[in-house]
């Protein structure tokens, strides 16, 4: 017997789905519901929020009180993984930076995301700015799928009729918290629109989705929900699809290559079992990649064959190109009026209660496109570091007796300050359109492999003037809102030297664009159905197909586009030689 042997499984599935997040989960769900035999491969372990969520745990149940030493968003956060994974490195060429977040688990990053569920608008698909690229499809073509996603999964919000912030089919939104009432008032004075949030949380029962509970307002969506009251791909798509008996999940399966035949068609994939480290191959009539934008690009580039010498679906040379994250910059402070505020439970939902959709006319600005603003603050669950700002802030306002206080301190006086300032904090963060540029990309590092022997990614990513100008504008806007609401800023003043607080590429975890769709095979990787130009039975359903994302967090669009692709596959089943 060979020591190194690939164990080939003979069963031929109708479709093999790589990845179980928003894109893979939705494709698997639609196809399994329609009777396809689907095999889903997930690189991480099985994860069921009903059993595995750390929801309703108290801070003292973590020895580090929820500090972010191991999990980047703290011990209770639902994402297994982070910007660094043991034994799975990546790099960036000198002078560039990209931080790559990977969640390895059933449902991927959807277990911990902010559930902020925004549709891209008509101008996001067909931009009018003369700078950013247009999609081969329009909002009207995607709208029916957004509608279906709203009905299937559930999203709260309000009908506003804004031009490029399309309304959905909404459940009732949660009412604002106290800090948010101050924000609304301040933002209005500063000329910034604020509307109720849009979140994938069941504030009302959703009849179409059996087995899901409604929100009980613990504010902990980031930990994933034991009653499936919010959207995770694990709870809302993959686990229900498994119940059809048409979808099988193999977890701890790290896919190595997409296998192709002499004609260049996909025949299946090979993977390594991350537990027993044995090699396997599985067969499928179709291969659907939803491994995340960069991981799917890596997989394609690593799948070289006689028919696809430059990597699968890469005759254009564009796999990995046009990588783009969102921009992000933030500010925090506190509202002196709220010192010594009354205590009550204002946990609310774990998604946003209010937000600011992009509100300005770009003709007067020095950057294209825009950003939205998310807000925070209030009487949240104590956690590691949550009062670190108080010994700074206590020197910025008079004490309870009206006298100026010295910053810092100790003893009963400081203990009272912690009580006094708790819940008076306020924060805001911008999330904006970063340009999809050909020169920002990931590629295979010619020198390095990961612990499974799979060649790893090397990134080239630099912010341009457009993103920096946007971050500067964010800081100016935040300062103006803070001022109008009577808040005092406690975060550092970010100037040109820090690119106005602009976060490193990848830090907002909205990466997309690496397998862009288009009508011309020379300038795009996929056609408008997210089907590879070079390989008709290969599809990509994560954020790779995005030509150019708007300032709208991309999950809702991934879901709508993946559903659209899956329905296209069902329509084309004869042409694709499927049952």
């Amino acid at each position, binding site marked *: 017997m060979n020591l190194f042997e690939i164990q080939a499984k003979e069963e031929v599935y109708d479709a093999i789905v790589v990845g179980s997040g928003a894109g893979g989960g939705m494709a698997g769900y639609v196809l399994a519901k329609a009777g396809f035999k689907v095999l889903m491969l997930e690189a991480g372990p099985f994860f069921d929020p*009903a*059993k*595995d969520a*750390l929801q*309703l745990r*108290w*801070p*003292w*149940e973590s*020895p*580090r*009180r929820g*500090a972010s*030493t*191991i999990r980047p968003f703290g*011990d209770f956060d639902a994402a297994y993984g982070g910007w660094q994974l043991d034994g799975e490195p990546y790099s960036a060429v000198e002078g560039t930076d990209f931080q790559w977040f990977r969640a390895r688990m059933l449902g991927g990053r959807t277990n911990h995301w902010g559930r902020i569920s925004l549709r891209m608008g008509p101008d996001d698909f067909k931009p009018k700015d003369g700078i950013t690229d247009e999609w081969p499809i329009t909002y009207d073509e995607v709208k029916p799928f957004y509608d279906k996603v709203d009905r299937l999964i559930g999203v709260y919000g309000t009908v506003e009729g804004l031009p490029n912030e399309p309304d959905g089919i909404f459940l009732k939104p*949660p*009412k*604002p*918290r*106290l800090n948010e*009432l*101050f924000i609304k008032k301040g933002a209005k004075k500063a000329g910034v629109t604020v509307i109720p949030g849009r979140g994938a949380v069941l504030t009302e*029962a959703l009849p179409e989705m059996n087995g*899901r*509970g*409604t929100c*009980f*307002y*613990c504010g*902990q969506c980031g930990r994933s929900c*034991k*009653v499936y*009251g919010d959207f995770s791909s694990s709870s809302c798509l993959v686990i229900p699809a498994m119940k059809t008996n048409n979808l099988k999940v193999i977890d701890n399966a790290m896919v190595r290559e997409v296998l192709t035949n002499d004609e260049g068609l996909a025949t299946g994939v090979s993977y390594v079992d991350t537990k027993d480290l044995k090699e396997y191959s599985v067969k499928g009539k179709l291969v659907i990649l939803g491994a995340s934008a960069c991981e799917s690009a890596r997989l394609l580039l690593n799948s070289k064959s006689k028919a696809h010498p430059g990597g699968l679906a890469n005759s254009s040379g564009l796999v990995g190109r046009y990588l783009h994250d969102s921009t992000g910059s933030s500010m925090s402070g506190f509202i002196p*009026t709220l010192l010594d505020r*009354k205590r*009550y*439970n*204002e*946990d609310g939902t774990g998604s946003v209660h209010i937000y600011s959709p992009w509100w300005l006319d770009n003709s007067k600005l020095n950057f294209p496109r825009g950003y939205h603003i998310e807000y925070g603050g209030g*009487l949240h*669950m*104590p956690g*590691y*570091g*949550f*009062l*670190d700002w*108080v*010994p700074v802030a206590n020197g910025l306002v008079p004490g309870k007796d009206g006298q100026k206080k010295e*910053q*810092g*301190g*100790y*003893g*009963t006086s*400081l*203990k009272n300050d*912690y*009580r006094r300032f708790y819940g008076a904090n306020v924060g805001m963060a911008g999330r904006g359109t970063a340009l999809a540029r050909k020169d920002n990309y990931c590629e295979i590092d010619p020198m390095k492999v990961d612990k499974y022997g799979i060649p790893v990614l090397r990134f080239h990513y630099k912010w341009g003037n457009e993103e920096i100008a946007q971050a500067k504008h964010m800081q100016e806007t935040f300062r103006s809102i803070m001022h109008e609401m009577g808040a005092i800023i406690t975060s550092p003043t970010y100037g040109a030297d820090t690119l106005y607080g602009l976060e490193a590429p990848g830090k907002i975890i909205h990466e997309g664009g690496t397998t862009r769709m288009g009508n011309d095979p020379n300038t795009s990787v996929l056609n408008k159905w997210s089907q590879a130009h070079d390989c008709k039975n290969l599809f990509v359903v994560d954020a790779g197909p995005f030509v150019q994302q708007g300032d709208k967090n991309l999950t809702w669009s991934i879901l709508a586009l993946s559903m659209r692709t899956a329905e296209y596959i069902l329509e084309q089943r004869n042409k694709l030689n499927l049952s």
Partner: protein
Amino acid sequence: MNRRDTLKILGLTTVGSGLLVEACQQPAADKSAAEATTKAMGKKLPGVQDFEHERNTKLNEERFFSDHEMATITVLADIIIPKDDISGSASDAKVPDFIEFMVKDIPEYKIPMRGGLKWLDVQALKRFDKNFVDCDEKQQLALVDDIAYPQKAKPEMQQGVAFFSLMRNLTASGFFTSEIGVKDIGYAGNIPGYWDGVPADVLAQYGFTEKDNA
């Protein structure tokens, strides 16, 4: 599924059995913070990955601070958060044990903490010819006063200021995330409920009306 069913499921869920009961009980002050911490260290909660649990257990078995350092940390923590009418002190909430864990968890804290404690002892020896813990309360507070106020501290005290700021943050983190501290600060959430907007009396207090609550 309506809200009542949701809560029923939550209460009946076999994993995390008694979760709802646990969640609805107010934390019992003063007695069980240490017990809870020990419990959290000992058993692996569902959803915690094996390598995380192994790391926690390993860190908990290691010992970094000497007895003298722990004694100094305890005195300092209780100076920062003393017992008062509302709640117990930092050491009542086992803050020194938490700090011992955190410097192993975040090793960048090891040198600033060890060196800062030494720096403080050197100051105490120079001024009072004693280690910090052996100084009387008045002497201890005189030393702390020199490093507790960043803006008025003398330039030669700045290393002490940096140490004390770290010590203060660790103490506040440890205290206000303990059962005693969470009760003290008045956090009223982490229980299943219904959010119906800002309560009427609070709206009125800040000049808002029911219309703003919509």
